[in-house]
């Protein structure tokens, strides 16, 4: 098998420092937003006792789901033994670590008592899916860290497959855990289903790969390295399969709920009567997030790099909107404590709950994205993560 040379990004150009500074600025905004929310309490956010998880959770859960998906490419290389993907694996691993870091930061900084993080790390209730997730996240950092080490250090290279397999199994478990955060909730109609775990896994495949493709293309374009179509076209097809699978799961979930009379009202709310949430579902999640990307990826448009990037961008945007509909939508619909009766109270029982995200929430979420990208940008400068060239000729040699 031909070898591929990995090289750090030089990272001394003004362009690199501008990128770093730009991302740093958003990290700073995120930090200021947290400080503001922490100082005044959640009263300065759009969240209340009806919508208890808001925009920060949308970003956090999206990033955590995408983190596990970003490891796809590495998994294909080592677990499924596809040599063509091997040069792409180190970036895949570092990106997954960076996205998880960003997501977790948003999650913990949105706690009512973010200063009590140490309590969460030392007091455990093992019946809680959150507690499970604390261990799943920590384990992911350790396993993917080891996996990355086996890829970068020749002396431990022989353990790469074992480490890659362990990381692969772990990431499937991790996303099962993320989906089950919602799947294990009995109170709300749109949660409480085992469907959410596999659905989150397939969503992670799509979102993670879309982010990976954009980061890969950006890294190669901005450093002037060659990135051939052979690699991109394979990943493009894979992305189309993942996006189609996401659409399949969403359709099956809603079809099942629509069959049960007790879910008719909540389904009508999401699919027809929910105002902005309904618009976000149909236009954002379905059209922007699934249909348009599928058309691009499966038609000849997808062969053009620009269109491929547009499709990736839409998958990411649609993914964030999907998280919004999943997390906010389920809370906006009132709890049905007395089926068949109308409810009214000073606590907004029986009413559709409205939610307008505040600026600090938005910037806290963006801060998490910026942390993930900043960590990746820094990592490609200090570690040999990117092949010096991924032109079609070098990639073709790997397959023989």
């Amino acid at each position, binding site marked *: 098998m031909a070898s591929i040379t990995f090289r750090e990004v030089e990272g001394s150009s003004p362009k690199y420092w501008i990128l770093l500074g730009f991302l740093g600025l958003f990290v700073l905004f995120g930090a200021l937003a947290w400080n503001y929310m922490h100082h005044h309490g959640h009263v300065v956010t759009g969240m209340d006792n009806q919508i*208890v998880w808001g925009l920060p959770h949308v970003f956090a859960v999206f990033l955590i789901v995408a983190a596990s998906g970003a490891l796809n490419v590495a998994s294909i290389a080592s677990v499924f033994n596809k040599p063509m993907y091997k040069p792409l694996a180190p970036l895949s691993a570092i990106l997954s670590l960076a996205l998880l870091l960003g997501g977790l930061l948003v999650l913990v900084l949105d706690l009512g*008592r973010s200063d009590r993080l140490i309590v969460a790390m030392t007091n455990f209730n093992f019946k809680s899916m959150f507690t499970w997730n604390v261990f799943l996240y920590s384990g992911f950092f350790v396993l993917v860290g080891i996996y990355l080490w086996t890829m970068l250090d020749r002396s431990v290279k022989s353990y790469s497959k074992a480490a890659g397999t362990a990381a692969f199994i772990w990431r499937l478990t991790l996303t099962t855990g993320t989906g089950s955060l919602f799947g294990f909730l009995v*109170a709300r109609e749109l949660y409480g289903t085992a469907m959410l775990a596999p659905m989150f896994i397939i969503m992670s495949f799509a979102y993670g790969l879309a982010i990976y493709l954009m980061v890969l293309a950006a890294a190669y374009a901005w450093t002037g390295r060659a990135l051939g179509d052979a690699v991109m076209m394979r990943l493009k097809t894979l992305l189309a399969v993942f996006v189609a699978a996401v659409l399949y799961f969403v359709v099956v979930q809603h079809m099942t709920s629509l069959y049960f009379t007790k879910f008719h009202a909540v389904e009508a709310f999401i699919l027809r009567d929910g105002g902005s949430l309904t618009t976000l579902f149909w236009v954002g999640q379905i059209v922007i997030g699934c249909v348009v990307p599928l058309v691009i990826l499966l038609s000849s448009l997808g062969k053009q790099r620009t269109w491929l990037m547009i499709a990736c961008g839409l998958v990411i945007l649609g993914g964030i909107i999907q998280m919004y509909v999943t997390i906010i939508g389920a809370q906006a619909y009132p709890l049905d404590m007395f089926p068949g009766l109308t409810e009214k109270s000073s606590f907004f029982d029986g009413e559709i709950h409205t939610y307008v995200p505040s600026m600090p929430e938005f910037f806290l979420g963006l801060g998490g994205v910026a942390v993930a990208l900043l960590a990746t940008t820094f990592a490609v400068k200090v570690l040999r993560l990117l092949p010096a060239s991924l032109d079609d000729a070098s990639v073709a040699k790997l397959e023989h």
Partner: protein
Amino acid sequence: MSDMKPRSDSTPASPERRRFVGAATATAAGLAIAPGVMLYEVAHGRAEEQAASSAVRWGMLVDATKCASGCNDCVSACSTENGWTPVAESKHPKQAPQWIRKLELQDPLTQMETNLPMLCQHCAEPPCVDVCPTGASFKRADGIVLVNRHTCIGCRYCMMACPYKARSLVHEPLNDTQKPDVPRGIGCVEACTFCVQKVDRGDGNTACAEACTAAGHNALLFGDMNDPESEISRRLRELPTKQVRADLNLNLGVRYHGI
């Protein structure tokens, strides 16, 4: 692991506690001829170092047929007793905590109206306790579901899990009207405690039930559901009652008549 259980359960046995356990055993043996007396003793106040006992299960009977439309006395009494600002006085009504609220129900077909207070149902199998990552949400041996103010990290997972929307997050800094025996705090989740401070003092009643009785409605009855001789047990034997969202099979500490 040790913090998984409420502190009252996990505190190592002190000499005083051992002495108490010894004394309690002797007392129990002595009182074996008078069933019910032991429960009566436990239900009426207990020493600080004495753990809550599972011999008691605190509960409430809500008679919705007696709950008056427009009356808010139970809510006001709770707010006064526990020091939370009434929602009408709050600058941020959607974010203001409400430990108890009056619910107006109506059947759209028959137009039949029902009034009832909604509060923490003190489930025997509380979903909030299941999902709490730090174990801050816990159920006391006597059935009261509480939040440990020191280990709640404000993740709000319990609020997502509660089928009764019984919990509130403290969204803003609290003014200094807090009650010394009702600790609260910004960023933490809170809910009805069945006036645990009153129960532990030996009052044997909650502020809401006292207010309802004082108003002459007698729609709320608080007591020990484990004691067959208690008023609440007697009434529960006679009246048909329901649990809200009985399909979840959570074995609630609050039972409703007339819904």
